[in-house]
């Protein structure tokens, strides 16, 4: 079990992480979501011991990552670019990983390379999708217990994204490892994540399953008899998505009796609850995301 305990970090007198606290069980895929600058990357870098916290600890089992570097054999951090290995060829990178991690499975890695038709070139010469696949495949071939992935699908085309997601799911199914993945690709996370950790201004705003996240807020399409009431449009606790004639589509942060009574008071013709996507939950809970797809 991975345990993040009251992690706090200030950089340039700004609080980047503020008492972050959560646990991750084996076999879980955790989606780390938050707006740009919320502290996701800093959190991941701290969780692997690159950055030292001002307070708090990160425990893998009972051991602190800051006291036992050997733990990192089972904790793999994959940053958002393959910049670190750009001067290596694929084979050289394989040799490096094999020499660092005794558990590295060369044949599993070779299999992935063959499947995706990746040649033995310098990593900087590969396409963005191929780079992501190589770095992730290298990481997964280590057969570690924990993976911390920072924006693994950022900038990838649809096919490459799908391949990366398949790789992740296959690992969890095969080896019961845990993956903590930070991404702005919310509809991708939605397909794979067991739980969501929402980070806002360095704090954990919420930790919940996707079902819980969806139940937390509401998305309604309401058809009124005459016109959409101005009082509804002026409410601060909802976000209007669209207004088309007598039809309004909106989201609310919370399902409240007061809101239901308010809508009912206008005797609408139809109230339809639309399933919330993770992106919807993100928008209404964290105030939108410019880069969300």
């Amino acid at each position, binding site marked *: 079990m991975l345990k993040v305990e009251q992690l706090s*970090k200030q*950089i*340039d007198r700004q609080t980047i992480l503020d008492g972050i606290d959560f646990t991750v069980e084996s076999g879980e895929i955790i989606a780390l979501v938050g707006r740009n600058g919320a502290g996701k990357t*800093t959190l991941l*870098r701290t969780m*692997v*011991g*690159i*950055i*030292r916290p001002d307070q708090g600890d990160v425990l893998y089992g009972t051991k602190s990552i800051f006291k036992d*570097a*050997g*733990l*990192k*054999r089972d*904790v*793999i*951090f994959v*940053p958002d*670019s393959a*910049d*670190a*290995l750009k*001067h*290596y060829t694929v084979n*050289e990178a394989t040799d*490096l990983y094999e*020499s*660092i*991690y005794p558990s590295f499975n060369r044949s599993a890695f070779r299999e992935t390379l063959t499947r995706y038709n990746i040649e033995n070139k310098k990593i900087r010469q590969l396409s963005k999708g191929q780079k992501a696949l190589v770095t992730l495949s290298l990481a997964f071939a280590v057969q570690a217990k924990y993976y911390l992935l920072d924006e693994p699908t950022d900038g990838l085309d649809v096919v490459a994204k799908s391949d990366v997601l398949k790789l992740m799911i296959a690992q969890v199914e095969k080896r019961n490892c845990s993956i903590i993945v930070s991404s702005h690709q919310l509809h991708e996370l939605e397909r794979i994540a067991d739980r969501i950790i929402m980070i806002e201004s360095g704090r954990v705003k919420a930790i919940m399953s996707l079902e819980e996240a969806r139940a937390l807020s509401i998305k309604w399409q309401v058809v009124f008899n005459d016109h959409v009431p101005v009082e509804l449009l002026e409410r601060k606790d909802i976000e209007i998505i669209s207004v088309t004639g007598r039809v309004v589509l909106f989201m609310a942060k919370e399902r409240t009796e007061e809101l239901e009574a308010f809508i009912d008071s206008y005797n609408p013709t139809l109230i339809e609850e639309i399933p919330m996507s993770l992106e919807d939950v993100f928008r209404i809970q964290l105030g939108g995301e410019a880069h969300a797809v």
Partner: protein
Amino acid sequence: MPSKVLLKKDWKQVSLLWILLVFLGIVAFTVPVWTQMQVYEEQIRDMQENPSNYSDILREDVETMNTEDFFNSNSDYGYLGGLESLIPMGVVIFLFVIFGALMASVLIGSERNSQMSDFSMSLPYTRTQLYISKWVIGAAGITVATLVGGALMFLIIRFSDYFFLLDGNEVKVLGLIVFLLLSGISFFSVSLWMGSFGGESISQVVWTFVALVFPMGIVALIQGSVIAFSPNFSYTFFEEVFESVPMRILSPLNNIVNTGMYSIFDSRSEWTEFLTIGLSSSIAFIVLTFGLGLWMFKEAPQENNGRFFMFSNWLWLIHIVIIICFAMLGGVFFSGIFYPQSVMLYVVGFVIGAFLAHLLAKRLLYRFNLKLKS
């Protein structure tokens, strides 16, 4: 012991420079020797062909003189030079200063510039192992360059017409080669340490320059300031400071300057001082910089990678040191314009220097610090 894996990883980064250093090290040790021998040869030939031009030196028939006679300082035949002119200390030290800084900046600074630093820190190795590996690979480059270059230099002299210069001096030449080796490792070691001061390669090189110059520079500034206030103050005091053991330990450049290269072959006391103070100061400097470098590498906040100065909590101290140094420089400069030196002008220069240094430090340490990062 350093990890083989880390050595392999660091080798990948620094191999080109490492090989170039060994090659240039061999060139630096051997080519100047060869060139100097050519110079000797030409001088001897010229003396033999035109003895009348050297009548003040040559007191006997030049035809009867052999090569050895031209190098005998005790004879009446003249003196062309000795081993000290053959051993290319300056060239080798220059090479080691440059390549020490380059290798260290590739091993730490450029790692901090890229994601390589995060990659290294995320590997299952302690920061101590990471640092030792970098130090070992750089020190090994300097060692190989010195041993191969030094051995070739020795052999060139041994099998040349000037072999007699080595007679009885073999150990001293060996001592000088070891001194060059230790000086080279000192330069690399201080530069690697500075990789935890500066958060990227260029600032690491800048900090290396500062670290090399600082000990002698600060004493020179204090000397200038003291003399501006009391012109009759003894110069001997500062000469003693420059020649003191602590100064030789703190500054490898000062240690080289104070090593009596030209007299260790003739003077027994100089040779003894070289063996005791010269070599041990170098070793002490290496131990000191390695220890401080390791400690700071472990403590350096990774989040400040890419900045001009890594320890942002200590920016105020660097700010004050910059102001004091530039203020003294301004004071010394202004007071030296007129003779006799004026205390008033020193104060004016001090204030101007302090003000300009404050502006420079603000830009360099705060704005530039963040700009580099972004």
